């Protein structure tokens, strides 16, 4: 019933001078404008013992500038009908904002002022550090977050990808004002920034607004990507994160996955979708639909500049955790050794190609894709030719990608639960287990 539509054009990219890049995607559907101000390099840049620095440094931007206190800045942001937050990953850290369109000029005025005259008041940094530490402690209430953090730091132990982007209570406490100033002097510079706008603003105005933001910064060069390629952990390990009185477990099983630069990257993404990417995938069907052991079960291959984690996750009751983990590992073994079928690949290709419409149905989504290409070093046509890439995958290439990238012999299983109840069944659930340990949930 719909009309034929042409391919959505890519967001417009423009040079902002001094190495800064601008990206713009228009939409006049709703009177809102999204603004992203992102740096090349994220938590992977954090010095040893100071994880969380990149995030703290950008959060300090709204804690005082020339002529405005933190309180005045907060009030001004709200009064303009805007919101502003800092988003951090291993490879980028940025300010993400949205504002009612009629106030976009005033909001960019404010943002320009924050970028060009940050004060980094010491008392505000101390407050922010205490606030951040309290947030880290509070996050321990969320078992899923506890499991994911434990997996990331253990799977990538000793590597920059093991840094917690938000930091730990110890590393946040160790950050000084000098660290924040040095980070901003080095990385909050024109040559290291990508400015994106999307929404209800004309192209001419968007270009001018982006230029004003970039010009608020001092000249400087892009951050180098000197993160080494992660290496897999050898053997099967179990880490139980002990938390009292759990009726349920949060279970994540991870291994080294894929990088967007890999020749077989899209093939692995397609194969993963068969395994745990949809409601009718193998994991969901076996764990939830057939046995009712958990409300959900899924797997995903994260993307970054280098190889990131491949993770499957579920959350069975404490009583079912052993059989559930054992089944998940059996399914994984079968996925690697027997592969996926021609029928499964054809089915999931139809899903991935047709659902692509929802990846690009708003200007903000199209903007973020363009920014990801730039910030994660993705191939230029990663998103724009995504459906072609997916269609090109064959059962043979999907199965080769699984065998090439996923090693079932090198797995890390992290389970948040009550150790006295779950440790023994979990140990028995993992064939060829090389080692197991228990840590308290509030250790980090």
């Amino acid at each position: 019933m719909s009309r034929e539509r042409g391919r959505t054009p890519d967001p417009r990219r423009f040079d902002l001078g001094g190495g800064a890049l601008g990206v713009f995607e228009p939409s006049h559907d709703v009177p809102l404008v999204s603004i992203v101000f992102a740096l090349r390099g994220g938590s992977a840049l954090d010095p040893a013992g100071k994880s969380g620095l990149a995030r703290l440094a950008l959060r300090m931007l709204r804690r005082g500038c020339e002529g405005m206190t933190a309180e005045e800045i907060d009030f001004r942001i709200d009064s303009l009908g805007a919101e502003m937050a800092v988003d951090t990953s291993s490879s980028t850290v940025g300010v993400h904002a949205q504002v009612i369109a009629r106030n976009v000029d005033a909001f960019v005025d404010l943002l320009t002022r924050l970028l060009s005259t940050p004060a980094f008041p010491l008392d505000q940094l101390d407050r922010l550090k205490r606030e951040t530490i309290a947030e880290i402690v509070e996050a321990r209430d969320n078992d899923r977050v506890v499991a994911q953090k434990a997996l990331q730091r253990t799977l990538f132990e000793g590597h920059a990808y093991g840094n917690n982007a938000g930091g730990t209570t110890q590393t946040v406490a160790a950050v000084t004002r000098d660290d924040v100033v040095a980070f901003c002097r080095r990385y909050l510079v024109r040559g290291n920034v990508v400015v994106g706008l999307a929404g209800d603003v004309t192209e001419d105005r968007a270009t001018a607004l982006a230029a004003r933001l970039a010009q608020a910064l001092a000249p400087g060069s892009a951050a180098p990507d000197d993160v080494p390629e992660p290496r897999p952990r050898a053997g099967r390990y179990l880490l139980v994160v002990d938390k009292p009185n759990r009726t349920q477990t949060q279970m994540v099983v991870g291994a080294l996955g894929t990088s967007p630069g890999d020749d077989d990257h899209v093939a692995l993404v397609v194969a993963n979708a068969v395994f745990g990417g949809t409601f009718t995938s193998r994991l969901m069907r076996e764990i939830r639909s057939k046995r009712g052991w958990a409300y959900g079960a899924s797997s995903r291959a994260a993307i970054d500049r280098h190889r990131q984690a491949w993770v499957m996750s579920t959350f069975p009751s404490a009583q079912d955790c052993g059989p559930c983990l054992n089944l998940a590992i059996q399914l994984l073994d079968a996925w690697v050794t027997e592969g996926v079928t021609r029928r499964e690949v054809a089915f999931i290709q139809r899903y991935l190609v047709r659902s692509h419409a929802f990846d690009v149905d708003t200007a903000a989504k199209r903007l973020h894709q363009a920014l990801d290409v730039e910030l994660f070093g993705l191939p230029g046509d990663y998103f724009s030719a995504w459906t072609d890439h997916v269609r090109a995958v064959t059962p043979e290439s999907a199965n080769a990608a699984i065998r090439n990238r996923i090693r079932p012999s090198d797995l890390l299983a992290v389970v948040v639960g009550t150790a006295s109840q779950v440790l023994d069944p979990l140990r028995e659930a993992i064939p060829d287990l090389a080692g197991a340990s228990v840590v308290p949930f509030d250790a980090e």
Partner: protein
Amino acid sequence: MAARTSTKDPSAALRSWADEASRDKPEGARLVLEGAEAFGGETLRRWKLGNGLTVLVLVDSRAPVVAYHTWFRVGSRHERPGKTGLAHLFEHLMFGETEHLGAGVFDRKLEESGAETNAATWVDWTYYHELLPADRIKLAVTLEAERMQHLVLREPQVQSEKEVVANERRFRVEDDVEGLANEVLYKTAFVRHPLHWPTIGWMEDIGGFTPDDCAAFYRTYYAPNNATVVVVGDVRERDLLVAIRDAYGGIPRAVIPTEDVVPEGPQLGERRAEVTKPTASEKVVVAFKGPALGDADHCALTVLSEVLFGGRASRLYRSLVIDRELAIDARGWVSTFRDPGLFECWVTARGDHTGAEILPLLDEAFARVREDVVAEDELTRAKARLELGSLQQLETASGKAEQIGFFDTVLGDPAHAFRRVDAFRRTSAADLRRVARRYLVDSERTVLRVLREPPSAAGEAAP
């Protein structure tokens, strides 16, 4: 020369088209255009099938996608003690086998078309939603009509979903501090009204459901005259309506029971409750009895909540989180139920600070808004934040469909989202003081504290 203007009325043309499309059709399949109204810059039309099915259509061609929502006017308010959680269990069962679709086929057909689907249940409603590539809209029409009339409810399906829901309850309530606190809060604040029990149901009730319970519920509430289909997206309206007429027109009406909800009645004294959990931080919740969503005071109390709790510059966030560093979070919410609910004020203490330290400061802030008028700049700030939030809910086809379906189901007013924005704009400082005096009444509140269990003693290496 005056510009020529068209006098053609699109509604008149559609009415005559509907008459033609209904000719020689059974009564249940006859289409009637009941009305049209502005929804932002677009036109939302209300259609009715002869069997009572309401269809709300908003054509939006800006992206090649379509949101298809089916809202049933049934939720946990229609349950009774001993059978709590049935509406929510039913939401799960609706993804199961039907007479013409085997187990799992519903989801596979949608996934194969690239669609996303899910559902939600609350006090006043249950809704099912699909987001599809626009050229797949007929699939949603066919599948939703199928499960509205041909669901299979046998012991294996019911037993398996009871297990899944029990696990969902462990995830959302038993092992979730806020989930449990929320459950205890409503259980304490309401003693007669169905808000007393959780939508997911008590664990012992979930385990007790039989296929007969489910079949009776299905026959009673899953009928076209108890449902509204909302379609937002890149569709040709007439083609869509023909597809809906053909798929749903043969489904008979049901006799929807007259609602038997007991009003809560006045609360004559403060109620207190405590929960102890292995949590990192204490919490304190103060919940006043609040207005129904359709009450004229609801918007004013929402603005007051924003003054007190909305964002870093709000009074209580600034006082408790930023200045005094007693809390890690402070937030407020005026419940959006058809019947009067709660104005919930949640504060999570920081470190070793306690709810006992925080409660007097909350009381001080509540007393202040009862006594003094809110400054104009604070009011402007709160309204700007609410306008931003309202606009953000209209960014996607799904967001629009959700707003339309929710407000139509609860208030019978599908474009109410825009009326709320207007009401926020009109709200004055005097309105805020009035609602503060009316609702922030100590004898009509419930105070809940979440206390910490002793810290973990775990941590030894496993042998």
